[in-house]
């Protein structure tokens, strides 16, 4: 993976249900290894989904020494993107790493309130895609979704994350079969492909399958499942 894609301020956006929250939580965990010594913060700016969000992963984040910034009323009935004031101070700080999980599609409009500061500070914006999501299964639709997000938040996506998965039913073959999709999305979006995501819990032999499929050089990003389990 290209470490330089990760910056002090790294934002994660994408079509809802593509797996942003899971990726954002894992990106924060990875950031601890890329920036050893710097405090890592994970901010939840998701206004679209009141059910599954970074706020659910607080214990996992704390376990990895990550500071969760969650709206004061997350998971209640007055859930709004009211991040703590210190969020503003983190934008532009060279002594902190902040990962921001924004809501799907037009949910990224909430990011707009920090737009000017973000532009001045510099940022990475990871755009997450998943071929198993019907509305972005076609790379052309994935481009359309990216444009919608960029319009809503006034920022440019800088790297593509191929998070093609079927949740717990994901197989190694599914991941290998979606490599070309990830490449095509990155090509059409005009941004570099940051990684193909895989979950060792569900598809443990992914690296082996990738090698056999002739994709030994592809960047692979292992994640732990951070999605809330209801039963």
């Amino acid at each position, binding site marked *: 993976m290209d470490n330089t894609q990760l910056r002090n301020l790294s934002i994660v956006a994408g079509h*809802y*249900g593509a797996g942003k929250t899971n990726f954002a939580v894992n990106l924060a965990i990875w950031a601890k290894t890329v920036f050893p010594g710097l405090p890592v913060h994970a901010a939840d700016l998701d206004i679209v989904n009141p059910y599954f969000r970074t706020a659910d992963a607080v214990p996992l984040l704390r376990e990895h020494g990550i500071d969760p910034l969650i709206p004061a009323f997350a998971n209640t009935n007055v859930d709004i993107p009211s991040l703590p004031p210190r969020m503003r101070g983190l934008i532009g700080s060279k002594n902190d790493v902040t990962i921001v999980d924004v809501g799907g599609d037009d949910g990224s409009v909430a990011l707009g309130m920090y737009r000017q500061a973000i532009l001045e500070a510099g940022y990475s914006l990871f755009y997450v895609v998943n071929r198993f999501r019907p509305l972005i299964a076609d790379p052309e639709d994935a481009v359309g979704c990216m444009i919608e997000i960029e319009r809503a938040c006034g920022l440019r996506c800088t790297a593509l994350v191929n998070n093609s998965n079927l949740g717990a039913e994901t197989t190694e073959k599914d991941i290998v079969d979606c490599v070309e999709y990830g490449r095509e999305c990155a090509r059409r979006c005009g941004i570099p492909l940051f990684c193909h995501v895989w979950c060792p819990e569900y598809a443990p032999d992914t690296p082996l399958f990738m090698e056999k499929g002739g994709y030994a050089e592809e960047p692979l990003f292992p994640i732990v499942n951070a999605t809330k389990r209801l*039963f």
Partner: protein
Amino acid sequence: MSKVLMKGNEAIAEAAIAAGCVYFFGYPITPQTEVAEYMAKRLPKVSGLCLQAESEVAAINMLMGASAAGTRAMTSSSSPGVSLKSEGISYIAGCDLPCLVVNVQRGGPGLGGIQPSQQDYYQATRGVGHGDLRLIVLAPSSVQEMASLTAEAFDLADTYRMPAMLLADGALGQMMEPVDFSVFPKRELPEKTWATNGTKGERKKNIVNSLFIDPNELEDSIRARYERYAKVEADEVRYEEYMTDDADIILVAFGITARIAKSAIADTRKEGIKAGLLRPITLWPFPKKKLGELADTAKVFLSVEMSMGQMVDDVRLAVNGKRPVHFFGRTGGIIPSVEEVAAEIRKLAQAY
């Protein structure tokens, strides 16, 4: 690629389109808004129409019109919105019109909350509108069933010329699971000879109406409708059994709660407790005959719900005093945990 990853709400919308639904009338409300959002994106691409009405009341009356014209049409909402639609649902039932009403339940009463609940069981199975009427009520328990039962609900509604309801909850609406759309069976459906879709000068005009001047005529029409309801009760009861064969303790749970109950049963089975689950898939018609049979061999029943206890009444009616019926529930948007349900099972195992 046979499977896709979808939110429950999206699965409802996609399944409806696959089933030939071309009209959607709705009004946004959490946690069902993705149904409308998905319809707004997809329906125009299949020459359909997704219309955000000015209110739930308007939406349900638009649905009545679209259904009277013989088209496949639906609306969706969440608990408070369904209350607003109740008058229209009664009119639709009185007009003998088939359609689909989706309720992705949230906590009530009143504005309540946006978290999942099963507090609208009474409303769906008893009091969804005024008058002598029934809805076919289907309760999905997975994202796959959000899709398959949507398709099924349309077919049942057409077969029996009556409205059907998909009674889901916010958790099912929001969670994501793989769905396979290639597996739905097709029914033979009756022709809609009653539809007000233009006589073309070839037949007498059809009238769709729920007003009767003569009470004798009204009574006759209700009796005829109830003959159809009796047929639904005889032929369309659906349920799933899980480890009921040797069970002393029968849990009864529907929707998302049934999945929690299954996990609790699997956990307590490891301790030697013989528990099992009857999951009603149709809430009306309710699987009362099956429950009555289980009461011959089981020792005790436990209804598990996300409410203060509503379906438990139907369980008691079905068990008919043969065995004790207990209740466990969380309400107001709280999902019961596997541990809580397992603890209730252990209590019953000690007592019986």
